[in-house]
């Protein structure tokens, strides 16, 4: 135990002293902060809005639609999903239709326009007064990219309102009455007051998730790298003359991990201090404040430590198997792939933390640290699930450490070619 402590301490002291540690400690929050404030700033200030053109031979209709679209956004609270509208109402002569369309297409290509709505008048005034519907003009919407489905539905809604109002006016209903009738209904959610908190908690939890992801990947790789460094510098041979390979590996993982925890600790403390002061509020507007409960922070560290232990012991084995960073890069996949899977599912688990997928994935050890952390923070997993996740992960960490330390023991003394799978299995047997 004493040896493990000596090795861990050396690893810790030497790492914390380096300029690299200082730089990442300062730079990563700066970069993350810059990204966050930057995106908040960009979306608040220069939100491009949506620029559409309405082409119609009926100027009244075009104008009504324009005012409907623009008015709608004023009455509703702005959120990211509703872009601002700039609407050009265009009146065209039927003869120049083709020319107009050409110009619009060109603007579409150049990006000046996000789409245009072509309103063609009803074929001809119906010879027999048939149903009112046949009077309807045809609407053709040409968006710039097919992703603009929301735009399309917004347009449809606005058009519906406008046409409805027209019809109502037609039947002699006063405009103000029509407005009341068309007033959209607001449904209040029961948890309405929590909503803000929940949203900002989501932001903070996502940040912590990204942090955990980064630190685990970074420090896992650091473990592998420092083992390779010791292999190339051959220092381990001196060490192995007094201590066991297991002690060396344990010391290394603990030492490097403590550096990671120190770094995360510094960041979290700084973040909490910052959010407690008013600086953050002034800088970020309403968008960013850290809303974390103590439990969320405790769980963060619990799952962070589990995740780090899991991935760094895999990394230790990878490091022991390889002879250079280059070779390590090739095996990197084993380390990064599960982490990436977690990252990919982030969004859906964030939205539905208690879905079946979330429940299943969060119990699979490689994903547990990151995903169970999300569930614990945002969803409502039962106590036994939390317990089971920790127990399962701990058990698999034990298994991985067992395998890794055997690979390590043989691997650190092997130079030359990378072992093949059967060789690896043999290593497990004879140590």
């Amino acid at each position: 135990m004493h040896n493990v402590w000596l090795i861990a301490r050396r690893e810790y002291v030497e790492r914390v002293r380096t300029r690299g540690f200082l730089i990442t400690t300062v730079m990563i929050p700066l970069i993350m902060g810059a990204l966050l404030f930057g995106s908040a700033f960009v979306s608040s200030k220069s939100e491009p809005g949506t620029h559409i053109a309405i082409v119609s031979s009926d100027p009244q209709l075009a104008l009504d639609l324009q005012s409907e679209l623009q008015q709608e956004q004023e009455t509703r609270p702005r959120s990211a999903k509703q872009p601002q509208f700039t609407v050009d109402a265009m009146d065209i002569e039927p003869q120049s239709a083709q020319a107009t369309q050409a110009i619009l297409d060109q603007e579409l290509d150049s990006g000046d326009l996000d789409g245009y709505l072509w309103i063609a008048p009803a074929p001809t005034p119906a010879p027999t007064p048939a149903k009112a519907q046949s009077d309807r003009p045809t609407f053709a919407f040409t968006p710039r990219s097919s992703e603009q489905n929301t735009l399309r539905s917004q347009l449809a809604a606005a058009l519906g309102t406008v046409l409805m109002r027209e019809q109502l006016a037609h039947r002699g209903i006063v405009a103000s009455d029509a407005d009341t009738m068309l007033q959209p209904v607001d449904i209040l959610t029961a948890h309405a007051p929590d909503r803000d908190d929940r949203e900002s908690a989501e932001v903070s939890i996502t940040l912590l998730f990204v942090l955990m992801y980064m630190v685990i990947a970074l420090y896992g790789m650091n473990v592998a790298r420092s083992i390779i460094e010791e292999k190339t510098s051959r220092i381990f041979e001196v060490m192995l003359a007094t201590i066991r390979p297991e002690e060396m590996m344990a010391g290394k993982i603990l030492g490097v991990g403590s550096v990671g925890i120190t770094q995360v600790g510094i960041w979290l403390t700084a973040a909490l201090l910052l959010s407690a002061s008013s600086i953050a509020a002034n800088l970020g507007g309403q968008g960013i404040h850290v809303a974390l409960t103590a439990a969320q922070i405790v769980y963060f560290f619990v799952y962070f430590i589990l995740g780090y232990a899991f991935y760094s012991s895999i990394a230790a084995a990878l490091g022991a198997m390889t002879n250079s960073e280059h070779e390590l890069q090739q095996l990197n996949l084993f380390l990064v792939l599960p982490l990436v899977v977690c990252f990919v599912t982030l969004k859906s688990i964030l939205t539905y933390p208690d879905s079946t997928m979330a429940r299943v994935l969060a119990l699979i050890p490689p994903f547990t640290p990151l995903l169970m952390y999300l569930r614990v923070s945002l969803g409502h997993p039962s106590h036994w699930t939390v317990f089971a996740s920790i127990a399962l992960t701990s058990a698999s960490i034990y298994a991985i450490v067992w395998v890794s330390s055997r690979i390590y023991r043989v691997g650190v003394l092997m130079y030359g070619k990378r072992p093949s799978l059967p060789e690896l299995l043999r290593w497990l047997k004879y140590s």
Partner: protein
Amino acid sequence: MPIVQLRNIRKVYDTKVAVDDLSFTIEPGTMFGLLGPNGSGKTSSIRMMIGITVPDSGSVSLFDQPFTRSALPRVGYLPEERGLYKKMNVLDQLVFLGQLHGLSASVASRRASLWCERLDIVEAIPKKTEDLSKGMQQKIQFIAALLHDPDLILMDEPFSGLDPVNSFLLMSTLVDLCSIGKAVLFSTHRMDQVEKFCNNIALIHRGRLVLSGSMREIKSIYPRNRVLIHFEGDDSFLNHPSIEHVKRYNGTVEIKLRPSATLAEDAQSLLAQAIAHARVSRFEVMEPTLEEIFIEKVQETSPVRNGHDNGHDLSMAQLDQPSKGGLDA
């Protein structure tokens, strides 16, 4: 009480027998030379003595006890491949390694300074290891192996890459340690170093013990049948009937005489003939060098040489000469 006792140890790696049926003993106060060409199993044997690897069969005893890790603090090891933490300051590094061997930080630090003084590298103490010259790093490594005052000192190729002054400094340090009762084993492929300093040797070749015993015994087995002549002029005396074979260098010949009961007389007659034809500035009759003994032994054990024992190794490359080059009389 033997410090090290190897009994019939054998180690096989996947495709290669590294050490085969090797046995020897090292007594306290001995300077023990472990000799052999590169790849002959020196490093594998040393690693098995300190439990870095475990023999497949056979047994290792340290300090008269079957091997356990608890004996390791009494062993100092300098591996063949030098390794130090590059970014670490020299003193921190020595203290760290000392602590791993069970010293307290303060004792380790005090001894580190003393050793640096003794090996004349005081100026290196505050520096980072990567800023030191290779020779200095090697001295640091040397100190790291000795810091905890081990009773058994194992040095794998301790002098490779050192200049003569520093080799001598380290060698005499080892001799001093030996004289106060420590057992020193060092491996090398440089036979000349061994001849000068070792009391006991073990020659190994392809993992097998070829020859072992005390230096004096070994030498006394062999007849004084080697003649070294420095000369100028006519070399026709090399046709002398008692000459078995000649290696010829610039102005020098190394002669091996035919086995006979009258070697001393043969040498005298050779000298007379040489003087008659050429101007001789040196004439010496010797026993074979360790190198020659070694090559003879290797040829006995494996008559077909396949040139497997590579050519990095200068003195071993010379050994190949009799069969490949040279001038056969």
